């Protein structure tokens, strides 16, 4: 009976090692990139949770009422990457009033939204 030469037999018998390596690599990548990925410790305003974004939006509105600077307010709002910044401000103002929040804050949000809607913030 003919048998395979020893070297060929050894190589063909060692494919399982490569298979093991690939399986381990696939599991490692799955865990480290999808299941438990490393996340940046610091966030941009657009990466904040909804409550934090609302607080940030309120800060912008309060600052604008105190020291109206159109360019500054617009660039700050842009950081939040709201699909509808004016709408988000109005919604927040309404929610604040409904929750019994400070009228002054609701007015600040509404004022900023109004300025944004009329295009005042885009003016130089």
């Amino acid at each position, binding site marked *: 009976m003919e048998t395979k030469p020893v070297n060929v037999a050894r190589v063909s018998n060692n494919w399982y090692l490569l298979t093991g390596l690939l399986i*381990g690599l696939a*599991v490692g990548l799955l865990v480290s990139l999808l299941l438990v990925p490393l*996340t940046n410790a610091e966030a941009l305003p657009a990466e904040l949770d909804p409550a934090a974004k609302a607080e*940030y939006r309120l800060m912008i509105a309060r600052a604008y009422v*105190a020291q109206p600077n159109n360019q500054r307010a617009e660039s700050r709002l842009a950081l939040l990457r709201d699909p509808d910044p004016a709408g988000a401000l109005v919604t927040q103002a309404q929610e604040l009033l409904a929750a019994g929040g400070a009228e002054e804050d609701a007015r600040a949000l509404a004022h900023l939204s109004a300025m944004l809607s009329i295009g005042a913030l885009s003016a130089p």
Partner: protein
Amino acid sequence: MHPDVEERLNNLTLKTRRLIFFGITIAIGLAAGLAFGWLLAPPQAPDNAPLGQLRADFKADAVLMAAERFAAYPDPVAALRQLEGLADDPVSMMVSAMTEAEKIGYSAEDMALMKAMFAAIDENAVKEWRGGSDGN
């Protein structure tokens, strides 16, 4: 020993050996995959982060926003309340923020606003902000 039994024993040993090596290569592959994902790949952007996790330069701008409001409505306790979401110790955070602002190159006017607010926040303001928790 009977040749058949001996041959079976040899095969069992070979099988066990292969299993061990297979396990070792899985472990090596796993380590390599984890190392790539956790050490080499860039970290992912956070999602739904709290305000306190804001990047340092944006915290500096938040302090500036509080300072702009303070300039018009000088209320140190209100300023502390506005900033308390950014850090457990807003006073220390203000110092870090002003250092960051200087590093970034904020204008002299903006730095003056921040410093004026910081200077106005005294022990009484901090006590009032904390709600008089020291018992006084």
